[in-house]
């Protein structure tokens, strides 16, 4: 920080004070220091790292990101102050956080075909759907433990039904949707430990095959999206027949309605009765393919459709209580952010838009991120942070966004082809699968 001070006398200096919410080892003394105003993020990061090093000698440099007045610094300090009209006379408070960057790229999980969907809502494993009609459970990078077999068409969407109760229940409960117009529910023992021993024994190459316990029929066209109720009792699905169906996931409750259809034998798998389930109710209103459904609260469902509308459905009445017309065919949708109320959606263009449904009377998105160059296939909010957002696009890139800056925080560029799906996993990793039949895991992302 001092080096360029004597080289260039004419560089303006600003009085700054570094503050942070980070834990003590990452805290720097809050005394005001004067730094040259032409520093960028990198320069500021070096200063902080130097300060930390002065505190403890065995400090490893770490990238930081800097916020002034709740906005990320993405240019030189001087330009930023001029652009925002902030006076350089006062002592400037700069908040720093750990830079949100993938620090580690793990081995890709190779699939047989394009990876269409991924769900990482459970920290112990993640689930992928693939064009070969199989769902796969991955314990970690490159470690497939279970294969869900049964769909006759490509698996288009997957959802883990028991994300939180996993620790208590040792059963994995998932739902998959497919192009063959059905959804299937799967339930199996999460015997990772036994599998681990198997892995040790060298049988990891043969993941266990699982057969669905229930087939949900009722859609008359490809099912595009599936989402589970937070309690896990129901799932909803959006389809090309422009309806949203609600299904019971319960195995035994509605046994009267169910009919045991076939008994199948699959290799050495246990003979398991397969039940067929019918939709509990159908939400009609969209006029085109329902491309994405989200079920954030027990009584509301959000859906996005190719008929350019986003709707919020009330489960009790079965009506859409809120309807927004966006003007583009929508591909993906997620609800999250501030108070879990913001709607992020990717349309048939390269812009990621975020709406606030609490603002009445406006259809204008409150944020627009347009760094992608093709259709956005997935957008996901981070489930802990209000600011962080993940998007994947057909241009082969996945991007991490922070609402506090218009530039992407990080670009995950490992895919060779379209990225069809992406999700957060374990809170600090991003799993993304694409048309290159690979699923990449970028980990070590320090989202607070």
């Amino acid at each position: 920080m001092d080096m360029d001070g004597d080289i260039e006398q004419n560089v303006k200096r600003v009085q700054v004070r570094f503050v942070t919410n980070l834990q003590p080892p990452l805290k720097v003394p809050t005394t005001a220091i004067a730094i040259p105003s032409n520093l960028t993020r990198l320069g500021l990061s070096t200063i902080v790292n130097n300060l930390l090093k002065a505190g403890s000698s065995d400090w490893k440099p770490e990238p930081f990101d800097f916020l002034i007045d709740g906005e990320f610094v993405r240019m030189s300090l001087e330009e930023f102050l001029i652009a925002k009209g902030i006076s350089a006379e006062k002592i400037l408070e700069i908040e720093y956080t750990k830079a949100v960057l993938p620090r580690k790229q793990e081995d890709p999980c190779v699939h047989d075909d394009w990876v269409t969907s991924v769900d990482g809502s459970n920290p112990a494993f993640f689930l992928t759907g693939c064009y070969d009609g199989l769902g796969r459970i991955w314990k970690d990078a490159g470690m497939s433990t279970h294969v869900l077999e049964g769909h006759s068409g490509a698996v288009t969407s997957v959802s883990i039904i028991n994300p939180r109760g996993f620790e208590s229940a040792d059963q994995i409960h998932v739902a998959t949707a497919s192009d063959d117009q059905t959804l299937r529910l799967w339930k199996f023992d999460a015997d990772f430990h036994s599998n681990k021993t198997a892995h040790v024994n060298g049988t990891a190459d043969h993941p266990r095959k699982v057969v669905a316990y229930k087939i949900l029929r009722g859609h008359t066209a490809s099912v595009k999206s599936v989402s589970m109720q937070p309690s896990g009792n129901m799932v909803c699905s959006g389809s090309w027949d422009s309806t949203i169906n609600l299904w019971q996931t319960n195995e035994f409750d509605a046994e009267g309605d169910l009919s045991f259809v076939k008994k199948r034998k699959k290799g050495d798998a246990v003979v398991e009765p397969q039940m067929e389930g019918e939709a509990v109710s159908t939400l009609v209103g969209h006029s085109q393919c329902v491309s994405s459904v989200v079920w954030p609260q027990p009584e509301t469902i959000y859906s996005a459709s190719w008929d350019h509308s986003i709707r919020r459905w009330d489960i009790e009445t079965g009506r859409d209580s809120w309807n927004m017309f966006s003007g583009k065919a929508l591909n993906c949708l997620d609800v999250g952010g501030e108070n879990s109320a913001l709607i992020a959606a990717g349309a048939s263009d390269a812009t990621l838009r975020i709406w606030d449904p609490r603002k009445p009377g406006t259809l204008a998105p409150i944020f627009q991120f347009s760094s992608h160059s093709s259709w956005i296939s997935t957008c996901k909010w981070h489930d802990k942070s209000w600011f962080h957002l993940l998007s994947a696009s057909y241009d082969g890139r996945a991007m991490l966004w922070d609402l506090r800056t218009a530039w992407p925080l990080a670009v995950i560029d490992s895919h060779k082809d379209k990225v069809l799906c992406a999700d957060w996993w374990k809170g600090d990793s991003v799993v993304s699968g694409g048309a290159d039949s690979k699923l990449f895991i970028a980990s070590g992302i320090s989202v607070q």
Partner: protein
Amino acid sequence: MAKVAVRPESQVKKEKKGRRSENSTRDDKSQVKEVSSGRNATLRKSKVNGQEFPEDEVHDDPVLDNVDPGLADVDGSASDDIHEVVEESDSSEDEVTPRNTIGDVPLEWYKDEEHIGYDITGKKIKKKEKQDKLSKFLDSTDYSKSWRKIYDEYNDEEVELTKQEAKLIRRLLKGKTPHAELDPYSTYVDWFEWKDAKHPLSNAPEPKRRFIPSKWESKKVVQYVRAIREGRIKFDKPKEEPRFYLLWGDDSSLSEKTRGLSYIPPPKPKLPGHDESYNPSLEYIPTQEEINSYQLMFEEDRPKFIPKRYSSLRSVPSYENAVKESFERCLDLYLCPRARKKRINIDPESLKPKLPSRKDLKPYPITCYIEYKGHKGAVVSISTEATGQWVASGSADGTVRIWEVATGRCIRMWEFGEAVKHVAWNPLLQIPILAVSVGHDVFILDTGLGGEDEKKKVKELLHIEAPTAGEDFANTTSPVSWLLDDSLGGLRLKHPKIVSSVEWHRKGDYFSTVMPADILEIFPPLYIALLFSVGSKQAILIHQLSKKQTQRVPFKLHGLPVSSAFHPSRSIFFISTKKNVRVYDLLKQKLIKKLETGLREVSSISIHPGGDNVIVGGREGKLCWFDMDLSSQPYRVLKCHPKDITNVAFHPSYPLFASCSEDCTAYVFHGMVYSDLNQNPLIVPLEILRGHSSSNGRGVLDCKFHPRQPWLFTAGADSLIKLYCH
């Protein structure tokens, strides 16, 4: 008093009479004005005249009944008599009360007598007893109409005026005409024919003054003569020479002075510059090399003058071209026709037609987001499924592929081994089948998409085919044989000639195939004979899928068929030949219309979803829009593409249409058709979609709109399919 009361009446009457004599032609109702007080005078006259008129004639006018019926038709001189007669016949009271017969004598004479006069029989008429003033006053206050009472001195009686009479009096007092209905200022109808009068109005001789010179004129002349003599008036004033003149003024201003002839100033010769100086600076002097190089130049490009240096003016030789150049200049001036060019200052922007802004016409396809890669050869034809979930493509590499629109994934592929010409998806959602034309065959393929019952339905539809049926068709010499193709899982229709295109009817049961007579290319001499024998009618066939039947189009075609199309809502069939488009009614089996394209060669046709508008793409890059209600000539011809248009397409729901061409671009237009018949369709060019690359000289071969989104698929010769989104 009595006299005073009567006199004014008679005066009024006299005035009337005077007026009547003035404009005797008028129907003067004003004279009617006889109040009853004046009646006895008129009565007397009537006695004298002794004339009688039938009463009924008089009573014609109901309005005037009360007042004086005689007024109704007073006409000229007769008016008086009528008047009197009326008076006589009028009132019953006349007979009751004996009338005074004293005549027109001053009533004063009877002032002191007890009688006022004598009646007809000569008896005295006694004066009535006079009321005293108090009782008079009381009467007047009691009786509301007492103000209307008049005392008649002559007859010594009280007369009560009727309302109408009172009104008449009031009008007279105001100086108006007595009757409100009379218009005193009515337009004057001149009933004398002044034109072509045989005789002049006045026969008076020309007045003398017309022959006498004016005195005032002669006086004026004398004045002028004096003024001229005295020198006060001068002719031909010496012209004032301008003291200063513009030395460097433009000669062109001369033209303003010479008004009569349109003088055009000659172009000015070039003024001499520094290089024409006798001693120019060194840099003006060309080197010897340059001078030599001038010799190599064309005569016209060669500089006319080569500068040279002379030490003094004395040594300058005479200019050798002086005579020649001045002669040429003269020739220029004399022979070169010059014309004054009037430049019109029009803003070229204002000449452009007013079109709505492109921003207001959104959405329309703009950018390419998805490419469908996989074909090895040029993609010749594409077709979208009714929901827009799938798109099928046929390629010159002999394959047909089905793609998922949203992801760009190829989900199904068939190989034929021969270049695919055309693919068409069945418009019905329930029957996901594909018609493909390959060489001489048309295949109906089961795509295997859809649910169980749909699959079953398709299987039934495509399965009934039995070998016996084939024999039947062989017997009936159908042009087409229906076969079952197991390897591809569908039907195969063998055609006698190469099939270029397949089009489905909107109900998904019928489809038409076009076989342009390829014989032309092989045996040109044979072609004409064939065309007249079989070719023309066999070129287009209509097939029915449910019955597996084929029939020829019962119309005679004039020319080579290029493509065909079904009307989107009615049983109308469009066949485009190379020159024009014929519109047939399939039910009545007759020609409805013939659209004259004016194109050299038609390549494609598309029907507006409303059915009344047709666009036709031509080989030379022209696109014709026909409004079939308007005329059989194109409503608009759009010349956009520099090369051949390969295909045109309408959007099924948005007001969009597109054309694609060999120049590797596709154009998107806004084509709004209004339901109001008075409003012509609005056509606005919106976007040029680029991105395809040329391969073997071919560009974009097909374009289709997404059925529900404002997106456009284009198929290129570069083996790519692109999706352009809004």
